[in-house]
């Protein structure tokens, strides 16, 4: 089904890693469409290629073959600088291990993507404060990242991911380092953002519970989509 709110088109993506003499086929021909406003969960056993797929969708990596269209543009042909630009404007990342800058305040961490855009310094602070408010961290702007809990760290990471108003947030096992309750709270933040801001969320998870918030799921095995769920394609 191709309607006009397709955000992402993946066509026969492969990714082959050369490790010494042997080739590792991390992706073996993945085709899938993701629409604006989706929450998509990517599931599958370890080594099935979930992170590899996420990295390609997130423009951190390029496929070995196949086409990847983001907003109708074929980003699989872009060079490093163009990809960086796309990451800055359209994509927000949330990682399992938070990946915040050490010895830096939550505000500074949240501002970071804006520093690499052409948004004025004045607006930078305003946007960052708004993003922190959205994830429920108002009043914690001046806390250093080593002074807050894991759940709060992940909220900062989410604030950083959404500060530049991206069309897409990618989260690779965002609750992997959190306890169940905190994990649930983080998932609520995602659902909230999706509902209120219409942001597309793609998350990788092992956890069926976590995946329940997703309207759509794909299961990967050996670099192939094994089955689809919630999307009668």
């Amino acid at each position: 089904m191709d309607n006009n709110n397709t955000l992402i088109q993946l066509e026969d993506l492969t990714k082959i890693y050369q490790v010494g003499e042997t080739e590792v086929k991390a992706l073996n021909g993945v085709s899938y469409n993701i629409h604006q406003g989706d929450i998509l969960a990517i599931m599958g056993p370890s080594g099935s290629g979930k992170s590899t797929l996420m990295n390609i969708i997130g423009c951190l990596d390029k496929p070995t073959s196949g086409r990847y269209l983001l907003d109708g543009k074929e980003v699989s042909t872009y060079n490093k600088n163009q990809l960086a630009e796309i990451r800055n404007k359209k994509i927000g990342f949330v990682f399992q291990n938070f990946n915040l800058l050490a010895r830096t305040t939550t505000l500074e961490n949240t501002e970071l993507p804006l520093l690499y855009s052409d948004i004025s310094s004045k607006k930078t602070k305003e946007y960052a404060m708004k993003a922190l408010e959205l994830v429920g961290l108002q009043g914690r702007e001046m806390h250093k990242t080593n002074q807050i809990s894991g759940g709060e760290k992940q909220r900062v990471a989410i604030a950083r991911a959404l500060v530049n108003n991206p069309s897409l947030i990618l989260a690779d096992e965002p609750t992997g380092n959190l306890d169940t309750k905190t994990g649930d709270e983080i998932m609520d933040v995602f659902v909230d953002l999706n509902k209120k801001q219409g942001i597309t969320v793609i998350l990788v998870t092992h956890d069926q519970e976590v995946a329940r918030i997703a309207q759509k799921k794909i299961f990967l095995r050996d670099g192939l989509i094994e089955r689809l769920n919630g999307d009668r394609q």
Partner: protein
Amino acid sequence: MTLVRTIKISFKALSRNKMRSFLTALGIIIGVGAVIAMISIGEGAKVDIQSRFASMGTNLLFVRPGSQSFRGRHGGGGTYQNLKEADAEAILERCDAVKYISPSVNTRAQVIYQNKNWNTSIYGTGDKYPLIRNWTIDEGEYFTESQVKTAQKVCVLGAEVNKNLFEGGYSVGQIIRIKKIPFRVIGILKTKGEAGGWFNQDDVIAVPYTTAQRRLVGRTDRISSIDVSAVTAERTQEAMDQIKEVLRIQHKIAPGAEDDFNVRNMSDIAESAAESTKILTILLGGIASISLLVGGIGIMNIMLVSVTERIREIGIRMSIGAKERDILLQFLIEAIVLSLMGGFLGIGLGVGGSALISHFSPMTTLVSIGSIVLAFLFAASVGVFFGFYPARKASKLDPIDALRYE
């Protein structure tokens, strides 16, 4: 991203690691400080020499035999002697801008008084020499024109010589031996009061040049140089021109041919003496530059370590949209900021250090703006040069590898 933002980011990164930043800059601080202090010693020596020469009188002129370039007929300039007493007399007679002349025959000799031995410069001079050189007689008197004419074995001691042979006591009337020939002391010079230094004007003995010719050098037909004083300092150049004209006639030099003598004034001589300190300055500055270079390598080392340590940070920055150029600039600017701050502190250290040196040692030091600018530019380029490789390494990292780095 604008440069201003990159600079801000670099400053933040540096201030997060104040101690490391300081230690990194320390190499540059010491390097720049050493360069400035060392150059100030060299420059100080130059100024010192120039002022010593200037104190001898600006209306002084020296006539010496021509240079070795004279058709190659003679060997080194030192052995080439073509000045005669007649030349000196002609100068005095025919140059109206000239006030006094004194033919000179100089040598070094061993002098003995009783059981004391001293090696010193012997100035064979005319009777006007004290007037030309602003020498003052402390005790006794200088030799007269008639004593010069008759080549008397009399001498006038410099203060340093008097100190060494007579323990500074009254020596007029005593007999000393110069090259085993007895000379009667008839006067003692007032000290110039310059302890040590580049050359000591008190460590001399003056004798009539005629006596020096006959008794000490053994050549009666030649003199080694002529000392001249111009009527006034303003007429020094005029006197020089007149002397040249007279000597060309005396020496029968065809028009267009080169002079076989040369006339120099005090500031020329001061200039060439100061020239010799240039080598000292270059040498000292060169040694100090090596420490600056080592400082630069220190910066590169720390920056490399810092890149490795901050691979994660680089990955994070890349994942949120930092371009290669942004990362390159950030690390390059960090290196430049470190070396510039090192440069600033180093200037303080250098200026302070050279003040201490001149305060606690007899050396004169002079901090020139040129050396500050030079050291500072050198520090900045050290930052760029040694910062570039680590910065480039950082910018070439793959974002996924960097993010995954443990």
